[in-house]
């Protein structure tokens, strides 16, 4: 019953989101397509972090570092002449490798230590991006003068306008949702949740906790790398300023506010937190623009007050129990 309704909700939302551009393209509202694309990238990041933070329960405060690593490595490959597909693939490889190298020593640590180490890693990454001039061009970012990042070409179609990227990102988000759901409802996904719920009990019930954590930690960084690559191929430049600690905190709040571990919750959280300030910026204009973070903050506090479990709290899937023991 519930399953049918949530599928319906999904289909309706998708329909609206895919028809929307047809109405606004070419009108004064066409800037919302760009906003939509940006929000979509945040949804992608939030879905990724939801695996570690929401499902495995790892307190990861430096997720943006991997978005940055994905974005920078994709830029470097693209500048080197590789097309979108190859640079994305290799940026995923690099991001996941670095993620696992960080995870190997750190995932044995308990919650608060993990938070501190990931936070530190986030800052270190930003410092390296700022100072490793020969590779990252420091604060000026990539590409350097005279170089360029190519756009995305799908078969023979060159993506040039915001509406193209809007559709591409929408498709990727949809794919990411399917992947998240499939991972969640599987043997590995259950193991992740068990680790979140009680690490010791999970280990003693036969789950190799460290390995399962590494899997989740790695999987989430795939999302970050893809988001990073999409971002730079669309934006065509990248600087360290896009990857501050504040951004990591934003993604964490998207998940907490939306409903930890709940996919629809996390998506709603991402849309609200990334979308509201963007919209307010445009809508308020003039004198009111400086109030936008105030309004934003008040909204967050209200939501936390009235829905402490998040906008759409996570729910476990009920299974058919069969007749034989129903008393």
């Amino acid at each position: 019953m519930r399953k049918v309704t949530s599928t319906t909700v999904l289909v309706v939302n998708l329909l609206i989101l895919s028809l929307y551009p047809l109405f606004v393209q070419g009108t004064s509202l066409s800037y919302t397509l760009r906003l939509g694309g940006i929000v979509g990238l945040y949804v992608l990041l939030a879905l990724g972090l939801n695996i570690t933070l929401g499902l495995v329960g790892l307190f990861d405060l430096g997720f943006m570092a991997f978005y940055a690593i994905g974005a920078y490595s994709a830029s470097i490959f693209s500048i080197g002449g590789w097309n979108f597909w190859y640079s994305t693939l290799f940026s995923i490889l690099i991001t996941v490798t670095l993620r696992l190298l960080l995870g190997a020593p750190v995932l044995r640590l308990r919650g608060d230590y993990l938070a501190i180490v990931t936070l530190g890693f986030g800052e270190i990454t930003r410092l390296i991006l700022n100072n490793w001039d020969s590779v990252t061009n420091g604060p000026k970012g990539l590409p350097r003068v005279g170089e360029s990042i190519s756009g995305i070409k799908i078969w023979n179609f060159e993506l040039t306008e915001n509406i193209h990227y809007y559709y591409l990102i929408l498709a990727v988000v949809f794919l990411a949702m399917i992947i998240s759901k499939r991972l969640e409802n599987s043997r590995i996904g259950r193991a992740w949740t068990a680790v979140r719920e009680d690490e010791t009990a999970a280990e003693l019930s036969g789950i190799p906790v460290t390995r399962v954590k590494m899997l989740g930690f790695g999987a989430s960084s795939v999302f970050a790398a893809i988001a990073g690559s999409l971002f730079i191929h669309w934006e065509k430049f990248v600087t360290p300023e896009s990857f501050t600690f504040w951004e990591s905190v934003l993604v964490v709040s998207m998940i907490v506010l939306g409903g930890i571990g709940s996919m629809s919750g996390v998506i709603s959280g991402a849309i609200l937190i990334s979308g509201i300030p963007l919209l307010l910026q445009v809508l308020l204009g003039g004198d009111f623009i400086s109030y936008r973070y105030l309004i934003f903050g008040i909204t967050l506090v209200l939501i936390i007050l009235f829905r402490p479990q998040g906008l759409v709290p996570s729910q476990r899937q009920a299974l058919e129990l069969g007749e034989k023991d129903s008393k």
Partner: protein
Amino acid sequence: MLLLETKSLCKKFGGLSALADVNFKIPQGEIISLIGPNGAGKTTFFNLLTGVTEPSSGDIFFSGERINGFSPHWITARGIARTFQNIRLFPNMTALENGMIGRHCRTRNEVLSALFRTPAFYREESEIEKSAKEILSFVGLLPMGNVLAKNLPYGDQRKLEIARALLTEPRLLLLDEPTAGMNPSESEELILLIEKIRQQGISILLIEHQMRVVMGISDHIIVLDHGIKIAEGDPHQIQTNPDVIEAYLGGHHA
């Protein structure tokens, strides 16, 4: 045949000797009770057997194979499962899902088969679901299958812990005070369940404070006091052993 054997097992916490030179044998198919006053080292013994902590010295053999020094999940996969003195379920998962976790070490689906939903994936998922339902119904919890573990009544939570342990297909089941906090009729039901488990050929090592339960169910009893094995024997021998009576009545004020 010997299922489990410990050889001069010692565990020290700083200066405290929680277990000293414990030699211990469990033959296949028996119910063995481990008793002793509070702080005697019973739970510590379980922690050593399951790999939660490593012995300070001594060895543990499980069907002839040395298992100390290995991680708990590996030991579980070898065939030792346990419950906890303070219930440790996965509170925000359903009863059925708690049980399904027990199947983890007996199944193999990884990320890729989950992503591509291969036939092998569906086959294994339905196998996991089916065995979890079977064991839930075995302990009498199937009707509660979709209830979150944290919302189950206390007695059912204890049973669910046992179900989860059983789903790992253990040859040896360690139960740490399974009747703690239960009323007499719930305890009675649990004792029947333990008997039923033994009939499946699973050996049981039971920590239990209620002497009535211990004397009724055990093939063999081992008594620990201050980390030292002070007696062992069948229920009758233990009841009449002067050292045991001393440990239970006099020991606390020493």
